[in-house]
């Protein structure tokens, strides 16, 4: 008997009792429709909640670094500050500057935000806890995240502002030059795993806890990926597109209200997404330092029990989130410690250092993989 928890079946069964009450409506079809909508709701809610936490962390940690107190009054320890900011942005007047290309101007933020939210679908939080286990997982993320610079250029160009234009161009240059090392480092992982699916990537790392995490097999790729991901997120050592000291706010200069809010949310969602991806690709995803099976054996708990399975699921989710938020913490600390690089130095780093580095890493990974597989045969 299959002992796995089948959420779909229990969801449909949940509507059975309604079938008894009002038999005239096809409740199973209703349940199916809601079942299709559920992932979207989960994604939006989960990502937005993640952003609220990340914004609060950013403000509190930056306050700690700078010997300030940070948000204090909105909720306990100011946890609701991000929510209050968001509400304020919603109620702000939405201004489109004169002579701006209003189509590009309006569409830009949406194009920036949507792909980032979409990418969350391929993030695994547990063995079966994923929104879409598509077999091209990582590739899907790489493909869809390269739409973002289009939105940045659109908003930069459509704003009718020189700073915004410069910011949009910078954003495009930066995204393009850092996507290549990013993709090359991911390729190393894919060669190791023989699969593009994020679930497979994590399960490959899950065998012996911390020792089989990809970070040990791909240390160079890890560093290249980390730097590129930070650059893709446009956070402080690499936040040139919105460099306040040079370009006022870059492509965001002319935006107010919720359109600005979209950029804001987008950047934090991107940060969390990148942290989750680093977790998935290099830090063993949902796997704990010691494999969960070993822990269960140690405490003499049966793995087949439904209750245990639920707890293990929660445990996996928390482990993923803890790893991801640790990386978010590092990114925040970096932001409030380092100065900003210059645009030519940024491009030099991308093209002259990270690209050769990740290429060499890929080459070595591929040849070692070939070598070891030939020995096995």
């Amino acid at each position: 008997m299959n002992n796995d928890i089948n959420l779909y079946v229990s969801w449909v069964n949940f509507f059975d009792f309604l079938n008894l009450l009002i038999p005239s409506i096809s409740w199973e079809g209703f349940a199916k429709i809601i079942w299709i909508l559920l992932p979207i709701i989960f994604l939006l809610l989960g990502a937005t909640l993640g952003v609220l936490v990340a914004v609060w962390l950013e403000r509190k940690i930056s306050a700690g670094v700078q010997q300030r107190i940070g948000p204090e009054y909105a909720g306990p320890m100011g946890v609701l500050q991000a929510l209050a900011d968001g509400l304020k942005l919603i109620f702000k007047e939405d201004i489109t500057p004169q002579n701006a290309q209003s189509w590009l101007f309006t569409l830009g933020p949406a194009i920036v935000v949507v792909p980032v939210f979409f990418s969350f679908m391929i993030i695994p939080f547990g063995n079966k806890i994923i929104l879409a286990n598509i077999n091209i997982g990582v590739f899907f993320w790489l493909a869809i995240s390269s739409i973002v610079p289009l939105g940045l250029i659109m908003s930069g160009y459509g704003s009718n502002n020189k700073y915004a234009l410069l910011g949009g161009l910078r954003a495009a240059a930066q995204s393009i030059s850092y996507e290549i090392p990013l993709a090359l480092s991911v390729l190393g992982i894919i060669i190791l795993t023989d699969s593009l699916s994020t679930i497979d990537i994590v399960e490959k790392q899950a065998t012996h806890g911390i020792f089989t995490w990809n970070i040990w097999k791909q240390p160079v790729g890890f560093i290249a990926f980390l730097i590129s991901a930070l650059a893709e997120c446009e956070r402080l050592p690499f936040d040139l597109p919105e460099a306040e000291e040079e370009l006022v706010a870059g492509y965001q200069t002319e935006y107010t209200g919720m359109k600005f809010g979209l950029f804001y949310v987008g950047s934090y969602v991107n940060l969390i997404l990148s942290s989750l991806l680093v977790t998935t690709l290099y830090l063993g995803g949902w796997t704990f330092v010691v494999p969960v099976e070993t822990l269960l054996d140690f405490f003499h708990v049966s793995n087949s029990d439904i209750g245990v399975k639920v707890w293990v699921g929660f445990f996996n989710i928390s482990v993923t989130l803890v790893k991801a938020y640790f990386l978010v913490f590092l990114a925040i600390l970096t932001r409030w410690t380092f100065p900003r690089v210059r645009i030519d130095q940024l491009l030099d780093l991308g093209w002259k250092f990270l690209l050769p580095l990740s290429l060499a890493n890929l080459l070595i990974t591929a040849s070692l993989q070939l070598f070891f597989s030939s020995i096995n045969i």
Partner: protein
Amino acid sequence: MIANLNSSSSPMVVSMGPHHPSMHGVLRLIVSLDGENVVDCEPILGYLHRGMEKIAENRTIVQYLPYVTRWDYLATMFTEAITVNAPERLANIEIPKRASYIRVIMLELSRIASHLLWLGPFMADIGAQTPFFYIFREREMIYDLFESATGMRMMHNYFRVGGVAADLPYGWIEKCLDFCDYFLPKVNEYEKLITNNPIFLKRVSGIGYISREDAINWGLSGPMLRASGVQWDLRKVDNYECYNELNWDIQWNNEGDCLARYVVRIREMRESIKIIRQALIAIPGGSYESLEAKRINEGRQSPWNEFDYQWISKKPSPTFKIPAQEHYVRVEAPKGELGVYLIGDNNLFPWRLKIRPPGFINLQVLPSLVRGMKLADIMTILGSIDIIMGEVDR
């Protein structure tokens, strides 16, 4: 338009300031950009012009003193010092030793405050926001010291022709020594955070290079000049106040780039602490509650009656007349040579009071430094020049 950006035929003209978020004060730069490269840059001044020199012409010196702190509002003691030094030199007024030491202590504290408020914005210009908060922590203590001695945090109105307005309050000297002990480790903390940071070094070393000859020819002064390898410090050259009684060195550097200016200013902060420490110990009369009480108590023979121990000499009356002579007086302000060319005509008011603000002269060199650099370098170079628009526009 994007195609045009990369062709040198039609550079994009961007107006940076006066309301650019990182522009220092109300300076406006008209920058011609070829992509990310700066083709040309033209500073537009005058948004903060208040006619300071003309105002001086119908005020007595004492009446004018409250205005002068608005020239360079971050190094306020220096503006007051030069305003009283000019008529003092013109009328050959000798000031008591104690007053002179108090002045030196105040000036050096003010120099540290000014350098601190240069460091923060300079780092913010490069993109590091955090040092800004650290420097305010220390600057606040200096301003607390100022407040307890002068009653005001920024616009002190403390210097007077012939001395200072009031003696140091009881316990002030110990507090100031405490500050010196506290401050030096904090400078080390800044250096730990900033000096060896690879991104910082990449952003500032070799940027905005001024050769020794250029620095002299442009008339630069202060850290701008010393960072280009010229050992020129008016505190040594002119020997004003009691600087020659204290043991300290000119801080200078040969490199001539933004990093050199950073290094010089950081070292100058340490050197100022050195000066303050010595001055606090050597100050005639030392730290006591009230000189006046002691003096009266000990009667006519009291050594406290001697000139050097007075904190203020024969107070020139508010109707002090400026002799009919002319004279150029200068002090070494944190930004450079702050001078006043004073012409008197035996009247209460100066006939002419020409201000030589260091920021104004140093700012001239900006366009020639940023030409051919990257857009981001404008802010680095401007930050390293250290201008205050209050004194540039006057």
